[in-house]
């Protein structure tokens, strides 16, 4: 990742991502039917990724909502099937409720602790690979050697771990009801050793 990329990613992580649950909540009420909030969120992020600079952004939450709104408007105009009335509603939704800042709301949710919980909730093999990569900092190649599975499989586990975090943190942290859908089969057949996998 180039320095500029890293900087933008860090900015996004610190100033935008904490507002995602609020944005999702607003979109689920405000977005015209037939428009998936998840699509709008991804497209809004694309706009943020493509900005030349983010230096001028003083109110990231308001800015994010504004960008999301522009995404909706663009789709509405393109579709040309939404009534004027719907557009009018959108105009009125111009000012999403700017309640407590996420800092205030997440104050007791120590990020590291959330992360530890998220990792703890990952499927077995994915968790093992993820812990070796992120907690111990081993390169993927080395993890493959340790776990005696291919580097490609390790890559798949890491990608599952990332996807897991997207769900975990995007939906406002630790919603256990969400975790059940990860009870999917392991990539490699279970070999009986996995029960003790977390101790080395």
């Amino acid at each position: 990742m180039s320095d500029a990329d890293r900087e933008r990613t860090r900015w996004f992580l610190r100033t935008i991502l904490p507002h995602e649950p609020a944005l999702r909540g607003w979109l689920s009420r405000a977005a015209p039917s037939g428009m998936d909030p998840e699509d709008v969120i991804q497209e809004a992020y694309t706009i943020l990724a493509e900005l030349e600079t983010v230096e001028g952004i003083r109110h990231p939450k308001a800015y994010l909502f504004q960008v999301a709104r522009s995404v909706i408007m663009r789709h509405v105009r393109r579709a040309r099937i939404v009534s004027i009335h719907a557009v009018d509603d959108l105009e009125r939704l111009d000012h999403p409720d700017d309640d407590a800042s996420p800092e205030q709301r997440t104050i007791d949710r120590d990020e590291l602790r959330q992360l530890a919980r998220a990792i703890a909730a990952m499927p077995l093999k994915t968790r093992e690979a993820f812990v070796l990569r992120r907690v111990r900092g081993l390169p993927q190649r080395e993890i493959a050697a340790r776990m005696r599975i291919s580097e490609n499989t390790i890559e798949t586990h890491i990608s599952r771990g990332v996807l897991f975090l997207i769900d975990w943190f995007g939906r406002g942290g630790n919603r256990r009801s969400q975790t059940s859908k990860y009870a999917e089969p392991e990539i490699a057949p279970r070999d009986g050793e996995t029960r003790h996998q977390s101790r080395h």
Partner: protein
Amino acid sequence: MAKRDTSRDIDQAASQWTARLDRGPLTAEEEAGLQAWLGGDPRAKGALLRARALSMMSESAQALGEGFDPVAFEAIVAPPPGRSRRQALLWAGGATAAAALAALGVGVATAGTVVRTRRGEIRLTPLEDGSSVLLNTDSRIRIRYDRGERRVALLEGEAYFSVARDDDRPFVVEVDGRRLTTSQAGFRVRRLDRAPVEVLVNQGRVDVAGGKPGLALAANSRMALSGPAAGRPQRLAPETVTRELAWRDGKLAFEGEPLGEAAAAFARYSDTTIEVRDPVLAREPVTGLFAANDPVGFSRAVARVFDARIEVERHGVVLTRAPAS
């Protein structure tokens, strides 16, 4: 018309690319594939940004330390509904509970549990009320909760407190005979040798008592509790706060500090010393984010920037000016 990918498909692909990038540099062919994917859907770039941001965030998992045991952690932080943590520990089985205690340094909240870290260690200690303490290197706290107060004494070192809201039961940090009280806040308290005792508030509000007069510290401010500047709150830029708290991610952040000072900062985290032999070199300003447990890596980076000579000896690193050529 081809079926449009769902946002879930896009997230999946973004996660795969993130994992691929994490593995190592892309081949030319893969790079072309990535660019094609990014250009193929207006949601792709945004999804990749989010996936990489979360991957970056997960780098802070290193702060959980080598002893981190997710299984034990799960047992401790997610007791089944209707059971207290104490019961949960019993329920989880003696061995698991013992492992959890060893891994996390969590005492079942009895009176006067002491938690400490060794040099170079960072340890997260969840507390029974949902608050937590992140202990920096070489630090020691005593936890004493009772019905009226959630009390933690900082005996030495540095700790970051994330306090869960409870208006009826104040959270009190005792340090050096002073009481720092809050109902909800995120703040850092530091008690180091040869430096003033200091409190820095990141979020919420902290009341400082035991001095004259009592004071309330708001977010983004700090105050010394001893030394020449004691009692005078100082406003901080959010960037400064982030930098001051970089150790929570196992990092040290500098912005223009003299090299000598930066080198000394590393000494807190490792037995490997950095000795700067040249006084002019020692005054060179250092800027950047470095892994706190890698003094040698830091020295190498510094040597490259300042054109210094580096010698790695048994107990440490020596930096000298390269002779003029």
